């Protein structure tokens, strides 16, 4: 037991170190700017939260982006009504999305399997449609919700009088743009990671995994599983709301497109790309997706010609035409292809792949070592095997 505790501590420590030094080691990869790093951290939180539901309980929600969108709206409203400080905004986002998750989860969790997926999808579509149409006074429809100069901002006005220009978001004076914004998100990401790890290691987490492996058996054993699943759903909704609130904090704008089913699909992809049910997987997946999105969508035919210039001209043209489909505006095609390849060949995700690779390398090196040591102790292996 102590061994696991120690390992977990090291895991969190290593994770924190890796996240906080991201501006350093991401720079050579061409991702060392705060805007992208913020997105890594925010979508990392989103995916970690999604993993609490999907990874532990096995319930595949196809409408998780609702909570992201709701969190964004709540945060922007907090900026408009209360203060430009991000603390109330983030708390607001978490609270409101938690309430939404409670309501949606309470109904959706009455069914499992594909019905659960369709129910969550239906709720997401409903929220998306309503945000675009009837709820325009709250969501500002297609334009998206923005902060304006005339907003009341009660706390700010009470503290420092009415402002003359649109203030920017801050955390007690620390601006939310640039690296300070990233570090704010990073600290929350580490906290989210720690909480998720604690949940996974707790008896509650064990119960969630039991739900995944065999819900019927739990029911027969007299355990009422729904409250556990609902709690997981709400926690995961709060994580998504936190991510949505941070999205609004770093760029105070909220639009309904954040709730679209494509956004829900994206977080599913992040989680399975990294590795469902693993601790690091969701964050790794989120970073890979956002990084690849950033890199691939920046390509255009000119850069491609530059890359493949070493090829003979006719081949170069063909290669550029083919790869051109996958980059720039065609980034989604890469995403879809990746999605399929992953589910077909590597359902365990990157973490599982790395583990398999590790095992393979370990076996190879062991085999090599064995072969090298054979001439020395020629008769030993047979007796060694027998004694084992």
């Amino acid at each position: 037991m102590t061994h696991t505790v120690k390992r977990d501590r090291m895991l969190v420590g290593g994770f924190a170190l890796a996240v906080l030094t991201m501006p350093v080691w991401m720079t050579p990869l061409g991702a060392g700017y705060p805007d992208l790093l913020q997105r890594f951290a925010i979508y990392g939180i989103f995916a970690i939260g999604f993993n609490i539901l999907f990874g532990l309980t096995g319930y595949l929600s196809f409408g998780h982006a609702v909570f992201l969108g709701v969190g964004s709206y709540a945060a922007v409203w907090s900026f408009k009504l209360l203060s430009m400080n991000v603390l109330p905004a983030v708390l607001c986002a978490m609270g409101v999305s938690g309430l939404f998750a409670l309501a949606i989860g309470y109904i959706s969790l009455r069914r499992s399997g594909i019905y659960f997926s369709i129910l969550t999808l239906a709720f997401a579509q409903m929220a998306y449609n309503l945000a675009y149409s009837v709820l325009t006074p709250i969501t500002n429809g297609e334009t998206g919700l923005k902060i304006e100069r005339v907003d009341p901002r009660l706390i700010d006005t009470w503290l420092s009088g009415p402002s003359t220009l649109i203030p920017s978001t801050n955390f007690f004076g620390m601006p939310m743009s640039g690296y300070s914004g990233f570090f704010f998100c990073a600290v929350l990401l580490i906290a989210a990671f720690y909480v998720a790890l604690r949940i996974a290691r707790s008896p509650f987490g064990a119960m969630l995994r039991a739900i995944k492996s065999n819900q019927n058996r739990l029911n027969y054993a007299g355990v009422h599983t729904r409250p556990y699943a609902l709690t997981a759903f709400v926690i995961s909704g709060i994580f998504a709301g936190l991510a949505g609130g941070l999205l609004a904090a770093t760029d105070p704008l909220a639009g309904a497109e954040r709730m679209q089913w494509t956004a829900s699909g994206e977080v599913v992809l992040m989680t399975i790309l990294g590795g469902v049910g693993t601790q690091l997987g969701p964050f790794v997946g989120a970073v890979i997706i956002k990084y690849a999105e950033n890199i691939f969508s920046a390509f255009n035919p000119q850069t491609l010609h530059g890359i493949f210039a070493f090829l003979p001209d006719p081949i170069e043209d063909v290669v550029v035409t083919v790869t051109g489909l996958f980059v720039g505006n065609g980034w989604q095609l890469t995403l879809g292809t990746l999605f399929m390849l992953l589910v077909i060949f590597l359902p365990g995700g990157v973490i599982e792949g790395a583990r398999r690779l590790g095992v393979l390398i370990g076996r190879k090196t062991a085999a090599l070592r064995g072969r090298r040591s054979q001439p020395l102790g020629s008769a030993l292996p047979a007796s060694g095997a027998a004694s084992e």
Partner: protein
Amino acid sequence: MDAVLLQLLNGLDKGGAYALIALGLTLIFGTLGVVNFAHGALFMLGAFCAVTTHKLLTISKSVQDTSITLFDVHKDVPYLQIWWGDIGARIIDYAVPLSVLLAIPMMLLVGVALERGLIRHFYRRTHADQILVTFGLAIVLQEVVKAYFGANPLPTPAPEIVSGSANIGAWIGLGDALSYPWWRLVYFLFSVAVIGMVLAFLRFTTFGMVVRAGMRDRETVGLFGIDIERRFTIVFGIAVVVAGLAGAMYTPILPPDYHMGMEFLVLSFVVVVVGGMGSVGGAVLAGFLLGILQSFASMNEIKDLLPGIDQIIIYLVAIVILLVRPRGLMGRAGVMET
């Protein structure tokens, strides 16, 4: 009375599309046990079969416009019109109905290839995996179409002869207020015909009998020495063709763009769930029912009463049905009820 009847009619064409897609979905689910999230994309592919047909028929040559003599003006005239004159023009006019001839073999090919190449490997995987892989497939299909045809909707006109409105009110003696676009009527009749054909195929042929038996108890059918998997592959092909036909004929109602499939997919899934997973009749019934319900919800009187109801009515119905009657309207007991 007129208004109610009009909404009833308005719901029919959309209901027809829902029913056709849902029919395919539920067939695939009932036979292969696979949840196909790519079915909306296949509907979209069918629509683009119509676009392709229209494009193929109107391959044009630039000729000098003789009606303007002051200066050189060139206009594009389709080859068909140059070769066959009026008959060629007539053929181009009928591009959408003719596209059915292209859509059937194309979609059958796509369907069989998909089943053999991809879906087959997912029979034994979890529903989550099936959903994910077909979801990825949907994105890929969508993006390939987008890369080829562009992102804008491509209007594809219905034949001249059915472009107006039918004066249905006069037919049944209700006055002139009740007019209904001809093509929507055609689409409704078409969908009913296709549904009838599929149902008859399942009901009255030996092949259909084996398939139905396989849906009930696949193992026993296998014990009789029948290669049920091969028949299920064909069923998958048929389901894909049905979705494709639904898409091809829908183009005059809704100009197709690359992401039209997803909206229909979500709705069709809801239709399948309401009708009952794996129930063919339920899917058809629920398709028309929800189509009509949606068109009633978009009446101004109802929208004034309950704002936004037209956007969410179908989902609301689905949620209520799933909670109250989890096996759907006509679902069989024991099929995916948890």
